[in-house]
């Protein structure tokens, strides 16, 4: 009797294992997110509520920025049109819930890649589109030129729900300085409160400081201190559990960066099809079957470069030419002294 029972249970277990195995592989072949996106006809993209250079809407509601361009690149690859994106502005607090609950399919909102976010809360980071670090902004007339001049009792304005809050604590604790954190839900309120004089310093990612400085009553009255207190690799995020979609977003970003590396721009992309270099030919869909693995056609990467441009073009258009951070710093290609380095598309 017992013998049969044992056999029966092992049989059931085997069937169960087999079943999960087959469903797993089926899921890998078919991306639910990709299918839904193609059915809807637009990419659902979560962005910030207004951070010049990264994701910012003009008066007519047109979104621009390097984070916005990642979503546009995915739309160009998947739907053939970089404008087929629906942008959802999100606060730092709302962003992850919006992604995990399925309200958006890509979160491209100057989000720091950390272990706990990647591993713990159902998210997957696909890469880095901006290397940043946290800094401090102060009023010029305060005479402070370095964080070493901070004293006990200093008050610091910032956003809630960001790594900023944690880095700030680590920083002040390690220096033994007592401080008052004043944390707001929205960036606009942080800027307004700091601008009014509520806080002695305003702390967030340095790119954010540079961008928000332009929103102050008198931008020239403020300066960003030279010290960087943290590593903030910012990049696009997708939901955990759809590896095909994850790959599409990752390689859309990689395509933009690699295109800059090989000198392929929106202007010369079509001509590059006849290039001698097979690596360039693969980048513009003239060699190999690079899209098949995602269930896309062969010109998905060509469309990204033609419609959105390479990473350098995107940076120049959004961050350099707007005067936010003219110097690319670490966000320069590895071939030019920066740390931008992506795996090859082949």
């Amino acid at each position, binding site marked *: 009797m017992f013998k049969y029972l044992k056999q029966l249970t092992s049989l059931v277990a085997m069937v169960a294992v087999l079943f999960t195995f087959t469903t797993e592989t089926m899921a890998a072949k078919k991306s639910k997110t990709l299918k839904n996106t193609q059915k809807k006809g637009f990419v659902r993209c979560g962005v910030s509520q207004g951070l010049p250079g990264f994701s910012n809407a003009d008066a007519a509601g047109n979104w621009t920025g390097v984070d916005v361009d990642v979503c546009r690149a995915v739309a160009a690859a998947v739907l053939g049109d970089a404008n087929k994106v629906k942008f959802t502005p999100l606060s730092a607090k709302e962003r992850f819930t919006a992604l*995990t609950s399925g309200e958006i399919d890509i979160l491209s909102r100057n989000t720091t890649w950390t272990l*706990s976010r990647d591993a713990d809360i159902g998210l997957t980071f696909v890469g880095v589109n901006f290397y940043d670090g946290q800094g401090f902004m102060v009023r010029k007339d305060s005479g402070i030129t370095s964080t070493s001049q901070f004293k006990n*009792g200093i008050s610091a304005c910032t956003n*809630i*729900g960001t790594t900023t809050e944690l880095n700030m604590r680590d920083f002040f604790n390690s220096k033994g300085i007592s401080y008052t954190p004043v944390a*707001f839900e929205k960036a606009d309120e942080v800027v307004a409160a700091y601008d009014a004089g509520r806080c002695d310093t305003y702390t967030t990612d340095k790119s954010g400081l540079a961008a928000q400085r332009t929103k102050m009553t008198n931008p020239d009255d403020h300066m960003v201190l030279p010290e960087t207190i943290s590593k903030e690799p910012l990049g696009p995020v997708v939901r*955990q559990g759809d590896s095909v979609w994850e790959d599409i977003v990752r390689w859309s970003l990689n395509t933009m960066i690699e295109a800059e590396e090989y000198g392929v721009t929106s202007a010369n992309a079509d001509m590059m099809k006849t290039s001698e270099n097979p690596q360039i030919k693969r980048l513009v869909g003239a060699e190999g079957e690079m899209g098949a693995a995602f269930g896309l056609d062969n010109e998905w990467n060509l469309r990204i470069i033609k419609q959105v441009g390479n990473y350098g073009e995107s940076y120049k258009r959004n961050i350099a030419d707007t005067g936010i951070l003219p110097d690319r710093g670490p966000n320069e290609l590895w071939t030019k002294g920066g740390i931008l380095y992506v795996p090859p598309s082949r």
Partner: protein
Amino acid sequence: MKFKKILPQFLTLLFIVLIFGFFTMNAQENMDTRGIEFGFGFLSKSASFDIQFSLIDYDGSMSYGRAYLVGLLNTLLVSFIGIILCTILGIIVGVARLSPNYLINKTASFYVEFFRNVPLLLQIFFWYFAALRALPMPEDAPLIFGSSYMTIKGLYTVAPIWNNFDVFFIALIIAMIIIFFFNKFAKRKQEKEGKQYPKFLISLGIFIILPSLTFLIGGVDLSWSFPELKQLAKTSFTFDGGMGIPPELIALTLALTLYTATFIAENVRAGIQGVGKGQKEAAASIGLTPSQVLKLVIMPQALRIIIPPTTNQYLNLTKNSSLAAAIAYPDLVLVFAGTAMMQTGRAIEIVGITMATYLTISLTISMFMNWYNKRIAIQEK
């Protein structure tokens, strides 16, 4: 016959259970596919973020559970102050609206119409940013009452420094117990023999004298710590020592009070007007003084009309305090459903706890108000 009665109820119940079951299953499935685990273990993990303003000892090395407590106490603080202030203001304005004096009457009705018709969030922003823009920097702030400074960084005032505070506190509680029994005794005496004591004066006497005695014989000692200007940088100052009340708390309390008081004022007006004119005239005709008329005849009847809708306003104020998140006052929503939720990613657990907390606070307030309402209701004999 009975079956016919029960069936629709049974079906409704089944329907509700099925819907909840579906939602739970759906959430469970989605969380599984995204690799999110459900659990409350995170509450004991170190929070590692700091909070601007806390009633209890807190720093980032303490747990998320402790951060929750800080947020909860901050919510309770602003609700408690708000409820007391809006009740006082509401009664004054409500009575003022019935004043025969034209100016008082019109001012009161203008106030009510204006403040109850502007969205609360807008009022909170107004008080916060208007105040921030209007208040002086710490180094320019004038001294108020010889002890306090009102600045853009908050209200800095004297802080009491106690020695043996627990002795004083126990004396205070004993005094309150004595007052309670004295009032019971006085009431019985009046009912039996018609003898009246100056209840208020005697109560006040006990309340002041007993705790004061502890200073003489209980070893209780009180001194004051005054705020002192401190330079942080060339043009940047703050205050050291004393007690600092953040401008966020002041702006939030002000906005909540001014908004909710308008509704309470209307309740008070309705309550007083709801008592028949004949009641007042009859009371006067048996020789009661005007203050006795108000205290013994009008108010007990008016309160019955005032209390139930005012309970709603207290609940509204408590729930509206969650708008604090907009102006950086670290209440339950900002600290727990904001920062803690972000850092842990436990959206379902944290929103669940937060909802249960607000529900508990609201039910407690309404239980207390229902008890009070029952106590003052007409006792049919």
